């Protein structure tokens, strides 16, 4: 009968698809989390697979919030986040979670102003004002005074933020909370906040997409997304009073102070660092969230091997993607911490 025949066809198709890509001998790891380091991780997992053909690490960029949640639910083998897990979240996980910094990146204030070719300067007050919804036009005095000689249009500022739970948001709101008491009380810092204004994009990809397509838009995205998509981004005034643009040097400078005093669990914030003239104020480590206990020995060994590779060979791929390498002291500490994965 026809139905039976059709069903047989489907069963055959299914069998083919299933068998043709048989599991045998492969180590398959699933991970999910931050979009901030996604270009880096997708490159790393691709390169690692080429040198270790039987290892396939499938990373899905769903946002740091998603990474944390899926890790707690144990639907992925490890997670990734640029906002460190809070104590509450750590309690929800059934095994202790270890944070392993991977690279250093930066949140940049990107914007879409086709008529303006100069690089814009943003003061902390201006950034807070824009995202609080108080500064609504590009030619607001706060922006004009920081950018003498630049012809800013009187268009509306279209604020773009994240619609999903995001470590990039955490980094940005962490910074805003430090430099703006009003932001601290009104909104706070977290992976997902109650934004006063703006459009929501999903992932760094979504925000970059919206900024790219919407004239007058302004959003915070990781440096590489602005670079890869040729989106203009501005300088930010750091605590020492210098307008700094995000790049490898300024991001590394931001981490320099903390490299020696890194806490044992590696959860640290490097936004708005004091004293360093060259430091970029909205930089951050990003972490892989690794469970400290694995039931599957093969998976555990693969993860440990990957972490070692990541901290040595892997670091050579960072700078091409505009992520700064980990400071040497941090790497030494991390290598020791790998031993605590059981």
């Amino acid at each position, binding site marked *: 009968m026809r139905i039976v025949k059709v069903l047989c066809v489907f069963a055959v198709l299914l069998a083919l698809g299933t068998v043709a890509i048989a599991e045998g001998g492969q180590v398959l790891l699933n991970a999910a989390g931050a979009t901030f380091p996604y270009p880096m991780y997708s490159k790393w997992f691709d390169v690692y697979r080429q040198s270790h053909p039987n290892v396939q690490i499938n990373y899905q960029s769903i946002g740091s919030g998603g990474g944390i949640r899926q890790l707690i639910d144990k639907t992925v083998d490890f997670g990734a986040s640029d906002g460190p897990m809070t104590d509450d979240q750590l309690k929800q996980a059934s095994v202790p979670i270890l944070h392993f910094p991977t690279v250093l990146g930066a949140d940049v204030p990107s914007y879409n102003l086709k008529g303006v070719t100069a690089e814009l300067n943003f003061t902390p007050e201006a950034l807070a004002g824009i995202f609080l919804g108080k500064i609504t036009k590009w030619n607001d005095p706060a922006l004009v005074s920081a950018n003498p000689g630049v012809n800013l249009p009187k268009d509306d500022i279209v604020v773009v933020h994240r619609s999903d*739970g995001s470590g990039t948001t955490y980094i940005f709101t962490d910074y805003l909370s430090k430099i703006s008491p009003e932001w601290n009380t009104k909104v706070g810092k977290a992976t997902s906040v109650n934004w006063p204004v703006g459009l929501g994009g999903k992932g760094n990809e979504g925000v970059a997409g919206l900024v790219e397509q919407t004239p007058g838009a302004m959003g915070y995205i990781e440096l590489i997304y602005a670079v890869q998509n040729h989106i203009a981004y501005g300088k930010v005034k750091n605590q020492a009073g210098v307008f700094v643009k995000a790049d490898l040097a300024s991001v590394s400078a931001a981490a320099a102070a903390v490299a020696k005093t890194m806490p044992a669990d590696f959860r640290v914030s490097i936004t708005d660092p004091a004293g360093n003239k060259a430091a970029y104020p909205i930089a951050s480590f990003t972490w892989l969230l690794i469970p400290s206990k694995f039931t599957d020995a093969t998976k555990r060994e693969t993860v440990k091997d990957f972490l070692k590779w990541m901290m040595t060979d892997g670091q050579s791929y960072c700078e091409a993607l505009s992520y700064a390498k980990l400071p040497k002291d941090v790497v030494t500490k991390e290598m020791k911490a790998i031993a605590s994965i059981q």
Partner: protein
Amino acid sequence: MATTPNAATPEDFAGSSRTSLRHTFGADEVAHLITMIAAATLLLITVLLVYQLWVLSAESRAKFGWSFFVTQTWDPVSGDFGALPFVYGTLVTSAIALVIAVPLGVGGAIFLAELAPPKISSYLTFVSDLLAAVPSVIYGLLGVFLLVPIMRTTVQPALKATLGFLPLFQGPSYGIGFLTAGIVLAIMIVPFVLSVSREVLMAVPRDQREAALGLGATKWESTWKVVVPAARIGIFGSVFLAMARALGETMAVTMVIGNNPKIAASLFSPGYSIASVLANEFSEATGNLYLSALIELGLVLFLLTFILNGLARLLIVLTTSRGSGVLPS
């Protein structure tokens, strides 16, 4: 069915042996059982679905109660959740979609049922059904790359210039927002309105039309004053059906609505719908209260579509003879 006690059964001819168990579980009974189990599986799945929605949203229901529906904040940090922005967004986009789709659909249905030659009517209805088969994400794709720029650069400024005195059409024009989402939804639900309305119009008996024409009415008068009112219950049914569809649409809306859980008077502003917030935030809701608040939203959506679909089918069945055959798959 009844098998006569002494009838010859195929087994008698086949020559296979029969055990007494076979009398209790004859082949027909087995078939009955198997098919009944299949049907019961459907019931089981649905009951499980409702149960899961109910149970997993318990924490949120207990904490917020009815105030969930009137709270405007959606704050994962402080754990304060309210459904109002999402219900608002869902209803507003659906309303916009209906305002556009119902005249288009009913108008088109009138043309296809009353005026067009039979072959053209069949062909065009076929094309309309194909439109209904286009996946949501394709509409989203076109929405993002085609509609949003047009809305931002042409349509919204034009509306602002002409109707800007209304609070509906004020504010900055992003291209993304309630209006764009409503328009995309409209295109998606027109085929449902058109197809069902056409069927109910065709079901109105010929003599109604002829009586009107016999009294000297023009074709339009006969249609509008006699045929359409006779079919109006079914047309309302099609509207409810289309609305139920619009409420549940996820992908196309998520891609163009702006993902901002705020209530605003202007149609140009970004918003959020229930389905969109579920798609965006479900996989990352940390904390049980957050997750259960999202599932409560899912429960609300389920109930809304349940009621609307039920009403729709009731109305459509009332007007056509072959009720269930009318609905597009």
